[in-house]
């Protein structure tokens, strides 16, 4: 069946109409007013990769239309650092799980790793082409990045390249990477729709999940590193065994594309950020569902029409999410 506009709208209305049932679970924690002329909306044609949170929910890093990378404390919204990247615009951001490191990919195909406390560049890496995705391992020892041609794993402290992982073909597509919480595995979404799991230190291929028909747009490991969650335009969350690549489970399908997945530290929940299936980069209407992994059911829901959800992280038992519209960023908690 072809996704049609009318059907999508009806499905979306049903999708969000139950939000009142969960209204008591959503709480506004704070807000940030951006400087004059700065807007949350991505420039035309650019996917909204403009904000990231550290997994410990302590920091938010943003890069909006003024080419200034800003680091904010959460949930207070206090501005900690601002870095003008106009001379070599930042294209992607990543905060380490503990918020100690901020990795910035630049238009010049370089990646700089900043120490957030001292606000100094700690390491610098040259990528062979534009960086499509990058991630720092939970123990802050490894950096992995993906370009159109390959994926590479580097040791941060020695700046030694540990592995070059060749992609099935140059796909010029969005890619997503995730390290397992135990730092032993690196997983990637590839253009051929497969999910590949590598040894994080050697780059040896451990498994390939090839059951998915569509590309995946979100990926995260469970807290015990024993499951891999992926989602995308197929509107469902697939649970994969990273050791053998077998599809273990599929969470009930929703009416929207999965654009982000974040697992909780206790392994009991996963937060999924959905967008309407109009277009993958249209973040103007997004919904967050908090899934109870044991019951395989939705325990909380967030949606605000016109608010683009930029990301989120678990803080204790609640999910802290950041969304925005115009020059305003807001921080909500969901539980």
């Amino acid at each position, binding site marked *: 069946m072809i996704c049609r506009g009318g059907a999508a709208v009806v499905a979306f209305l049903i999708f969000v109409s139950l939000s009142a049932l969960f209204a008591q679970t959503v709480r506004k924690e704070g807000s940030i007013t951006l400087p004059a002329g700065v807007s949350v909306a991505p420039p035309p044609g650019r996917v909204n990769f403009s904000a990231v949170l550290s997994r410990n929910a302590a920091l938010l890093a943003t890069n909006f239309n003024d080419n200034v990378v800003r680091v904010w404390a959460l949930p207070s919204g206090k501005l900690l650092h601002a870095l003008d990247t106009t001379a070599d615009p930042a294209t992607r951001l990543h905060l380490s799980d503990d918020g100690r490191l901020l990795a910035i990919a630049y238009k010049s195909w370089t990646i700089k790793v900043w120490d957030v406390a001292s606000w100094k560049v700690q390491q610098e890496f040259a990528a062979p082409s534009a960086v499509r995705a990058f991630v720092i391992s939970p123990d802050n020892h490894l950096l992995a990045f993906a370009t159109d041609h390959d994926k590479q794993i580097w040791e941060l402290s020695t700046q030694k390249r540990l592995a070059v992982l060749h992609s099935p073909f140059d796909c010029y597509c969005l890619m997503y990477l995730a390290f397992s919480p135990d730092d032993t595995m690196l997983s990637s979404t590839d253009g051929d*729709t497969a999910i590949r799991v590598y040894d994080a230190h050697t780059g040896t291929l451990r498994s390939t999940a090839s059951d998915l028909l569509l590309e995946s747009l979100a990926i995260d490991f469970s807290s015990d590193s024993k499951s891999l969650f992926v989602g995308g335009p*197929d509107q469902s969350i697939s649970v994969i065994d990273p050791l053998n690549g077998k599809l273990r489970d599929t969470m009930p399908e929703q009416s929207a594309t999965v654009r982000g997945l974040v697992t909780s530290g206790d392994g009991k929940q996963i937060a999924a950020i959905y967008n309407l299936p109009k277009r993958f980069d249209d973040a103007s209407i997004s919904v967050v569902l908090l899934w109870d992994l044991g019951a395989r059911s939705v325990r909380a829901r967030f949606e605000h029409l016109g608010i683009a959800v930029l990301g989120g992280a678990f803080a204790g038992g609640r999910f802290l999410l950041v969304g925005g519209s115009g020059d305003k960023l807001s921080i909500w908690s969901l539980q």
Partner: protein
Amino acid sequence: MFTRRAILHKCLALGSLTVASKFSAEAMFAAFQDREKQSRKPTPPNSLGPFYKKLAPITATLRAPGDPGLPLSLSGQVLDTRGEVLPDAMIEVWQTNHFGYYDIDGYRYRGKLPVDASGQYKIETVMPGHYPDLSRLCQHVHYLVTAPGHKTLVTQLYFATDPAFEGDPQKNFTRDPGVHTPELIRPVVLAGEPEAIHAAVSFELCLERL
């Protein structure tokens, strides 16, 4: 102004070119020039997704009777950068329907087909629609082309008639941030009776050797 042949003669005379063959220098110059003419630029790549779906059916007919939209024939030849035909190439295409929607659940407007012995292909489809509410992103057809011994090509075909280009794709191609080069924008030929109009676009695909 020297001709190419004259330059080759001069190179031979000055020692910057040596002919080590049982054939005459003239014959080798002719072959040299012939091969130079065949040298082609590889088709520029373009982004894959994110709506690529694997296991597309083998078919050259994506259009079903009664489908809304302008009937469109896509055709061309698959070659390598030396101009040699790739008869073992496989082409996979996918696009939106007339209304700008991809079929995520099934395989409408998705197909895979082998080229014929002369590297030619022909696909019957409809002109893809613009993404709803995102008309700045141009109409396009995705291609994934494979051939043994050659680098897989992932690219997209755009149409010179797209309103975003305002009739001048060479000048206005950057209006869609996804279009990195005007080389992927092709002219459209309209044919048939006014009540049964159809469009045709030729798109040659040139693959690099591994």
